[in-house]
């Protein structure tokens, strides 16, 4: 009855076709494409990291060295950000509009769905105001975390600092995510896993206004943060502070160890910096400034990553080896005519009485005595060759911890350098090199290099009459207090205890030998200090070094003071050592030494040196 009846197929076909297109589209949206599921997740979940409070750090007497202060990071999830009142926002957090746009762009680049830091470390005042108004700015929220605070502004190199993780850290350890902090140096770095604890996670449902609507899946995904463990260090912060004062305006390093345990009491590198400089927003600026200071290198930890020729203090080692090898006895007397002469070779010595026995040779630091002894150690016929003699000598030297890493619990320790016999062969271009070729090693010069930490450890060995505990910085960890068992092991040197006494007698004479004793200025009333000065030849002004321990019969402290460009050991290094020992053992400086203390505090080797250069 109607010609157009067949058109129902066209019309029905159009309907079916459109629905088919929809079904294909839905198939694509819901099954093929995963992007929307991810979006939905980020839309309605907020994963809030629960940062673990980082462990606190104390000194050996329970004095707080490092604690935490709350800081607030403003976070952003770019895909949840909607148009907002930029002016209001800018006023709240104190940045300008361009900056806001720039930061949003940056966050989008990181991820549109995951949160990233928008502004680091808001002040607590800013946070208080912002928290009230945050609902106006969907896509933003505040994450609380902690910053390090340092009530004492000392021991920066030892404590180390925290920094944001970089891509390498994240790749190496999946624990870290963008924006996390990690110990970058010092204690913070070696004890990172102890201090950091384990961060937790809370997952919330949030609605479109970013309001929390409750716990996600009843908190099944939540994890509580586990607090970091506290650490008690071996440092004596009062002593550290005093040592740092004494070293002000000087370049150099001090390491003091309790020889009975290997605990590091003082460890400093001068010039230093205030650890607070590496906290908060100014960190990168401060870091750049410190890192670019080429003449003073304040970031450089001289106590462990500077190596120096040890100078005369090394004569102690050669004396011990000579005794152990039977080359000399305490009574061996060696002549010195203003130096050591062999053929046309001469090694000068300052004027002193002659001949000298062992302890006098230490007192007067006689070059001739040690040149001869050293050569005899190497050339002893029983070794067959100088090279073998040297290798034997080196074995003894290594047993004091020279030429290897001591294995302390601080990062970036250097080994120093005690050459192999083959090194000398190569250098002298013959296997049959002569002991005379390397005779400068007899007096701690030449191819030797040693870190201040190793020097301090050497004094420990001598104070202990033959052994040392590996120097370490942590006294106890957490509640059970356990530390690495390797720090409880006695490391024996290759020298028998009986050979130490004559050497120690010599060190006693250095301090108490009257006229001509180079360590007199380290003497303390009622305390028997044993020491040894050194003057290390240097292309510029010589370095001043002094090692000492005290009391002689019951050593409680062994230390090295190394003052760059300090001219003679007796000038700065010895008096500073004496002051530190006295401060440690007596708690205060006796009246008769106040003038010395004042002189040391006022001595300025950094600026005067520059004056000289100006002349």
């Amino acid at each position: 009855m109607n010609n157009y009846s067949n058109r129902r197929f066209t019309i029905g076909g159009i309907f079916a076709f459109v629905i088919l297109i929809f079904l294909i589209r839905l198939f694509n949206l819901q099954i093929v494409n995963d992007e929307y599921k991810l979006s939905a997740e980020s839309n309605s979940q907020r994963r809030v990291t629960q940062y673990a409070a980082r462990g606190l750090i104390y000194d050996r007497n329970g004095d707080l060295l490092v604690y935490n202060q709350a800081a607030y990071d403003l976070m952003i999830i770019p895909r949840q950000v909607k148009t907002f009142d930029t002016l209001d926002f800018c006023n709240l957090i104190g940045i300008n509009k361009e900056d806001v746009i720039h930061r949003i762009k940056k966050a989008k680049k990181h991820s549109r769905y995951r949160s990233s830091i928008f502004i680091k470390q808001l002040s607590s005042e800013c946070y208080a105001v912002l928290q009230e108004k945050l609902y106006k700015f969907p896509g933003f929220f505040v994450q609380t975390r902690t910053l390090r605070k340092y009530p004492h502004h000392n021991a920066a190199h030892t404590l180390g600092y925290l920094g944001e993780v970089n891509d390498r850290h994240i790749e190496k350890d999946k624990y870290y995510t963008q924006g996390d902090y990690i110990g970058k140096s010092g204690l913070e770095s070696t004890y990172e896993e102890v201090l950091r604890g384990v961060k937790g996670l809370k997952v919330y449902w949030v609605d479109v206004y970013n309001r929390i609507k409750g716990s996600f899946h009843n908190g099944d995904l939540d994890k509580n943060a586990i607090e970091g463990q506290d650490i008690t260090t071996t440092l004596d912060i009062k002593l550290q502070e005093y040592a740092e004062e004494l070293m002000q305006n000087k370049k150099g390093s001090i390491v003091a160890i309790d020889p009975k345990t290997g605990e590091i009491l003082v460890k400093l590198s001068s010039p230093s910096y205030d650890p607070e400089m590496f906290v908060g927003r100014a960190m990168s600026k401060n870091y750049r400034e410190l890192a670019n200071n080429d003449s003073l290198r304040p970031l450089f930890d001289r106590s462990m990553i500077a190596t120096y020729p040890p100078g005369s203090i090394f004569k102690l080692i050669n004396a011990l080896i000579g005794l152990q090898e039977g080359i000399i006895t305490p009574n061996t007397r060696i002549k010195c005519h203003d130096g050591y002469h062999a053929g046309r070779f001469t090694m000068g010595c300052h004027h002193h009485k002659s001949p000298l026995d062992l302890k006098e040779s230490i007192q007067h630091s006689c070059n001739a005595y040690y040149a001869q002894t050293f050569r005899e150690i190497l050339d002893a016929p029983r070794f067959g060759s100088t090279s073998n003699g040297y290798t034997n000598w080196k074995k003894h030297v290594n047993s004091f911890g020279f030429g290897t890493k001591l294995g302390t619990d601080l990062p970036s320790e250097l080994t120093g350098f005690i050459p192999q016999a083959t090194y000398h062969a190569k250098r002298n271009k013959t296997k049959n090199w002569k002991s005379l070729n390397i005779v400068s090693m007899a007096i701690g010069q030449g191819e030797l290099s040693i870190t201040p930490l190793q020097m301090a450890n050497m004094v420990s060995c001598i104070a202990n009459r033959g052994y040392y505990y590996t120097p370490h910085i942590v006294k106890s960890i957490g509640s059970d207090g356990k530390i690495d068992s390797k720090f409880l092991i006695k490391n024996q040197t290759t020298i028998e205890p009986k050979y130490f006494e004559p050497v120690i007698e010599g060190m006693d004479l250095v301090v108490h030998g009257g006229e001509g004793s180079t360590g007199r200025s380290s003497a303390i009333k009622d305390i028997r200090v044993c020491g040894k000065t050194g003057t290390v030849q240097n292309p510029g002004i010589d370095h001043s070094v002094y090692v000492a321990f005290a009391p002689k019969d019951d050593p409680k402290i062994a230390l090295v003071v190394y003052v760059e460009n300090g001219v003679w050991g007796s000038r700065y290094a010895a008096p500073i050592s004496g002051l530190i020992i006295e401060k440690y053992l007596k708690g205060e400086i006796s009246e008769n030494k106040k003038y010395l203390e004042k002189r040391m505090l006022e001595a300025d080797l950094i600026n005067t040196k520059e004056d000289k250069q100006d002349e």
Partner: protein
Amino acid sequence: MNRRVSLIKNLDWITILLYAILVFLGWINIYAAVYNEDHQSILDATQRYGKQLIWIGAAIFIAIIILTIESKFYSAFAYPTLIVMILLLLAVLVFGVKVNGARSWFQLGSIRFQPAEFAKFATNLAIARYLSQYNFKIHKIKSLFITGLILFTPAVLILMQNDTGSALVYSVFILVLYREGLSGFVLLLALLAAIFFVFTLIYSSFTVAILIVIIAAISLKMIGIQIKQIAIAFALLAGSFGTLWLINKGTGLQLGNFSLLVISILLNGIPFLVYIYRNKIKNAALVLLLVIGSLLYTFSVSYIFEQVLEPHQQQRINELLGIQSDPYGAGYNVNQSKIAIGSGGFNGKGFLNGTQTKFNFVPEQSTDFIFCTVGEEWGFLGSALVLILHLSLILRLIFLSERQRSSFSRIYGYGVAAILFFHIAVNVGMTIGLAPVIGIPLPFFSYGGSSLWSFTILLFIFLRLDANRLELLR
């Protein structure tokens, strides 16, 4: 008594079943969309799902009344009904309240009522009545004029209420007209218009102009002009375009490629017309006329788009066509809607477990974006089921329409099918990013009394007519 029995017997229960399923699914999805823990009872009348249940009850009441009215009444009162509706549409412009920027609601106490929803069935009745006149010829100018008048009057009034979506619904009557004999050519033209529209905005007027020329060439071939002649015409066209292009370059007139092409077509059009006149090829003139018409259309599309449309309308279209993307601005709703649907996966997150809809990420989720809840909680299975149920209903309506003996019933049935189709296509298309965001409800699903009642009335009038199909034209 007997009559009632025959009415019940003659009712198409398949359609009623589909209707009931859709209404029920709609209701539980509204419950899911606005679900909150404080009001867990699905019967809570302070909440939208509770209210929807009241609307459903009212809808059933309305359906029963419609079925009890004598079927002759509907054709008899078709025109008066439309007139009443037009008056209401006029009245709402004056007395109506504004909701979401559209002045299309009457407020009576706490009840709001949207006359635009009811204008649909009235217009459908009037169209059915007019087209079913004895001896009706659709291609007569007068027929086209009156048909247009019936469709455009309510459409324009609704447009004046700022309710673009509801106004556009009337465009779907072209399918009904097609069924009643409107040339397929017109349908094709409408399709081409849509394609040109999209291409003009996505690419450029020039691209579309080239497209037009190619279509013209194909049409010329189809009406029997030899390839050689077409080739000559094209060589001339290309030649003049090239010349013009060079002149343009040389003189620095800075005319666009589109203008150059239009000028060359006009230049060549004159000898072309002379040739056609001599050879008396009537259809070729029509092709030329169409080419010129299309060019004008293309030009006006880009003109209207840039000069007439407001920025937010431009944005919506740009967003839809993928010309620019701003998921936080104009594209926010669609983007959130796609996320909700997409996150449903194959079998969905489960009833009441949708997070995107529950936490209000999707705007208007119980009304225009109700399909998101379906997509998120019931997944691909659920959304496909809903679409297929709707399609089944529409195809069933076509089937029923074709079995009518009365043209009035048939035309009305097609109108119902077309209106439902338009709503589904635009609403679902919008939620999955295939249609622009124009707020029209998903039939039987979207929250709201007006739309539910309007679709119920539309459908049940037809069911009433269908139940009487054997009595009429006896």
